[in-house]
């Protein structure tokens, strides 16, 4: 009756949680949450660039030109574009957090709506800033 050699079932292991291969469905809430942190860290590196730019004002005009030349290079422009978006995202999502701190907008439909508003707003403001910068040169 009792089997001499019980078949060994694979023991449960902790599943990988995050999309695309994990068990969780993608959701905007967690995505914007981690993006808030990632954009904040990115902006910290942006603050280093701002400091470099300001310090270059104390040197020769050619020192400042070197900073401007780097910022005008393809890599520099890509970094600036990324920082512009990170800034507007962190700003608008930060305001979303401040609203939550007043215990408003915490119902799930409201959270989704404000989340998508932040995404759209950050892209629109980034585009508007770059268009404005382009026409002012």
């Amino acid at each position, binding site marked *: 009756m009792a089997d001499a050699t019980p078949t060994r079932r694979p023991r449960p292991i902790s599943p990988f949680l995050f999309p695309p291969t994990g068990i969780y469905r993608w959701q905007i809430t967690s995505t914007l949450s981690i993006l808030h*942190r990632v954009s*904040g*860290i990115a*902006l*910290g590196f942006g*603050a*280093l660039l*701002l*400091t470099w730019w*300001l*310090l*270059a*004002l*104390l040197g020769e*005009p050619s*020192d*400042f*030109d070197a900073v*401007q030349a780097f910022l*005008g290079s393809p890599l520099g422009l890509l970094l600036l574009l990324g920082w*512009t978006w990170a*800034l507007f995202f962190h*700003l608008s999502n*930060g*305001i979303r*957090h*401040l609203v939550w*701190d007043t215990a408003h907008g915490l119902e799930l439909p409201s959270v989704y709506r404000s989340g998508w508003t932040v995404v759209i707003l950050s892209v629109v403001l980034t585009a508007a*800033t770059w268009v*404005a*910068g*382009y026409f*002012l*040169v």
Partner: protein
Amino acid sequence: MVSHHPQKRLAGPLARARGLGSAKHGLQHWWTQRVSAVALVPLTLWFVYSVVHLTGADQARVHAWLSRPATAILMSLFIVATFYHLALGVQVVIEDYVHREGVKLTTMLLVKGLIVLTAAAALFAVLRVAVGS
């Protein structure tokens, strides 16, 4: 948290009156993070507006812009609020991901030291331009 069973209250009356909790800082970190965030809303919009207007500017033009009193004051405030907010945010990230006490303390001191150093350099640059060398 509020218990009506006196035996279940772990904190003494003085600790509860102070309301500082186990970290001994109470709401200070949370509150100052919000205060700096609120300050950064108008300051950031001003900064972006200014930088857009300075697209492609040479050193003389940026120097002249920054030496105006209003610019120097707003830029100083922007720098202080930015690096303060950054230090508070980075602290939470480190506390969340670095768990070994020694590594955590070392990372915290290094990163916050770098933030303070950078903030001082940025502020010095603004004051040097604004006040003149």
